C-alpha cells in the first residue's frame, strides 16, 4: 500500500462530498454520560452522516471516548456508568434497555486505541467472529477472510502465515487485523478510538490510508488527538471541551469549516494550538 498520505484540504473535501451525502446514520439527542454521580459528558446533540468520516477532537478527559462508547453501548461494560438521552439508529433508540446488544455491536464495530488481536492465530481471529454469526462453511469463511485481509492491505504480508499467533505481528499490522476483524462482520458503522496513537509514524500513516479508503463504504467515527490527522481524513468534525468540569460538544460541522473558520473562540484557540 502506498505510504503517501492523502491530504484532505479544502479542495479535496468537496471531492469527497460526492460520497458523503449528509444523511444521518446516527442521530444523537441530548446525550449525557455519568460515571457514578459524576457527569462526564452533557447534552450532546449531533448527527453522524452516512458514509462520512467524522472526527472527534478535543483535549484528554473531555468525554470523547465516553461519547464513542455510548454509540455501541460499550458503556454497559463500565460499572456505574449511566447514559441518558437518545441515539437513533434505523429509527430505534439504541439506548433503550431491551435491545439486542450482540446484533447492535455487529452493526456498529469498534476499534480500540491499543490493538487488541486475540491471542489466537491470525486466521482464528477472523474466523471466530464469523462462526459466531453462524457462518460455518469453511470455503465461505476462507473467502471472507481473504477478502477482508486484502481490504486492509494485510493479505500480501500474512497470507503465507495465517497460522501465526496474531500478537506476533507488528503494532500497525495488529491494528489493521483488528480493523479487518471488525469489517469481516460487515458492519455499517465503525467507531475508532484513537486508532493510530499507539503506532509508530509509518504504521500510523498506513492505518490512516486504510481509514480514508473506508470512506463511502462505511460510516466512520474517529476520536483522535492528532489534529493534522483529523484535518486530513475527516469530512465532519466535532470539538469537545471541558466546561465547568463537564465535557461538552462545543462545535460541530464540516471539517473544513471547523478547522479554517471556527465559529467558537475555544475551537479557534484549540485548532490553532493556543489551547489544550
Amino acid at each position: 500500500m502506498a505510504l503517501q498520505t492523502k491530504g484532505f484540504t479544502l479542495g479535496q473535501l468537496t471531492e469527497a462530498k460526492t460520497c458523503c451525502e449528509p444523511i444521518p446514520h446516527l442521530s444523537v439527542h441530548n446525550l449525557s454520560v455519568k460515571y457514578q454521580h459524576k457527569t462526564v459528558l452533557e447534552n450532546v446533540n449531533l448527527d453522524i452522516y452516512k458514509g462520512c468520516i467524522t472526527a472527534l477532537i478535543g483535549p484528554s478527559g473531555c468525554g470523547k471516548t465516553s461519547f464513542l462508547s455510548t454509540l455501541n453501548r460499550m458503556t454497559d461494560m463500565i460499572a456505574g456508568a449511566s447514559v441518558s438521552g437518545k441515539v437513533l439508529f434505523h429509527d430505534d433508540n439504541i439506548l433503550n434497555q431491551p435491545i439486542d446488544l450482540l446484533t447492535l455491536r455487529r452493526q456498529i464495530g469498534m476499534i480500540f486505541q491499543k490493538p487488541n488481536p486475540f491471542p489466537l492465530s491470525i486466521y482464528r481471529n477472523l474466523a471466530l467472529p464469523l462462526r459466531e454469526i453462524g457462518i460455518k462453511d469453511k470455503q465461505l469463511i476462507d473467502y471472507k477472510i481473504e477478502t477482508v485481509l486484502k481490504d486492509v492491505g494485510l493479505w500480501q504480508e500474512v497470507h503465507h502465515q495465517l497460522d501465526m499467533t496474531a500478537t506476533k505481528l507488528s503494532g500497525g499490522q495488529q491494528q489493521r487485523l483488528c480493523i479487518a476483524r471488525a469489517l469481516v462482520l460487515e458492519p455499517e458503522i465503525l467507531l475508532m478510538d484513537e486508532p493510530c496513537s499507539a503506532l509508530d509514524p509509518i504504521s500510523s500513516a498506513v492505518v490512516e490510508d486504510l481509514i480514508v479508503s473506508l470512506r463511502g463504504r462505511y460510516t466512520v467515527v474517529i476520536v483522535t488527538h492528532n489534529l493534522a490527522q483529523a484535518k486530513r481524513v475527516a469530512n465532519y468534525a466535532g470539538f469537545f471541551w471541558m466546561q465547568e468540569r463537564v465535557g461538552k460538544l462545543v462545535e460541530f460541522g464540516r471539517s473544513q469549516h471547523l478547522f479554517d473558520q471556527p465559529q467558537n473562540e475555544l475551537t479557534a484557540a484549540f485548532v490553532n494550538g493556543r489551547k489544550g
Partner: protein
Amino acid sequence: MAERLFQAGIWCAALLVLMVLFWLVQGLLDQGLAKLSVDFLFSQPQNAGRDGGISSILVATLLILAVTLLVALPLGLASAVWLAEFTATHNFWARKVRLALDVMAGVPSIVFGLFGYAFFSLFLGMGFSILSGGLTLACMILPVFIRTCEIGLRSVNNSWRQGAAALGMPKIKAVWFILLPAALPAISAGLILGIGRATAETAALMFTSGYVDRMPGSVMDSGRALSVHIYDLSMNVTGGDAAAQASALILLMIIMVLNMLAYAITDLWLGRRVLNGFAN
C-alpha cells in the same frame, strides 16, 4: 556492594530450600532405595505392607485423584468464571462466596475428613469408599483452585474482553475461546497446587476412603491412598520403615510427574491456541 550482598542472600535462600529437599530425599533413599523395584510397584502389599509392593495402593491413589479432579475441575472452573466474569467485584453474593472460600482454604484437612465422613460416607451412604474420599478431597482443594483461577481470569488483558464484546460475541463464548485459554497458566498452577495437596493428604482420607489395602474393584470400594499407607507403615507397623520410605519416594515421583505433565499440557495448549510469547 549492597547489590552483591542482596544477590548472595537470594542465592543462599535458594540453596537452603534445595538443601532441605535434598536432605529429605536423602533420608528416604537410605532404606527406601533398596526396597524400590519394578516388583514393588506391581505386587500387592503383604504382611501389613512390610513385604510385597504397593500396586493396590497406587490404583486406589490414582482413582481417588481421578474422582477429585473430575469433580473439582468443572466445578472449580465454573465457579471461577462466575466470580470473575459474571458478577461485579462488589456484588453481595460474590463477596460472601469469596469469604467462604477463603475461610474454607484455611480449614484443617481433618475437619474436611470429618465432614466427608458425616456427609458422603454416612448421610449419602457411600460408606468408606474411594468415591467418598475423592469427593472430600475435591471439597478440600476447591477453595484454593477457584481463587487461583479467578485471579488468573481477572488478570487477563481487559482489552480482549472489550474486543470480544465489540464484535458482538456472547460473553460465555469470549470466556471459552479467549479468556480461559489466556488464563491457562494460572489455572494449571491452581491445579498443580490442588493435586499436590490431594496426593499428600492423609487425615481427610482415613475417615472417608479408609485404609483397606486390597485392590479396589470399583470407586465404591474402600481403598488406601499412598499417603495413608506411608502413615500406617511408619506409625503402626514395626519393621515397616523401608516400605514406608520406598512408598514416599514413589509419592514424590508421582507429584513430580504430575507437575511436569501439567506444565507440558499447558505449554502444548498455549503453543497451539495462544501465542508463545503472550506474556510480554
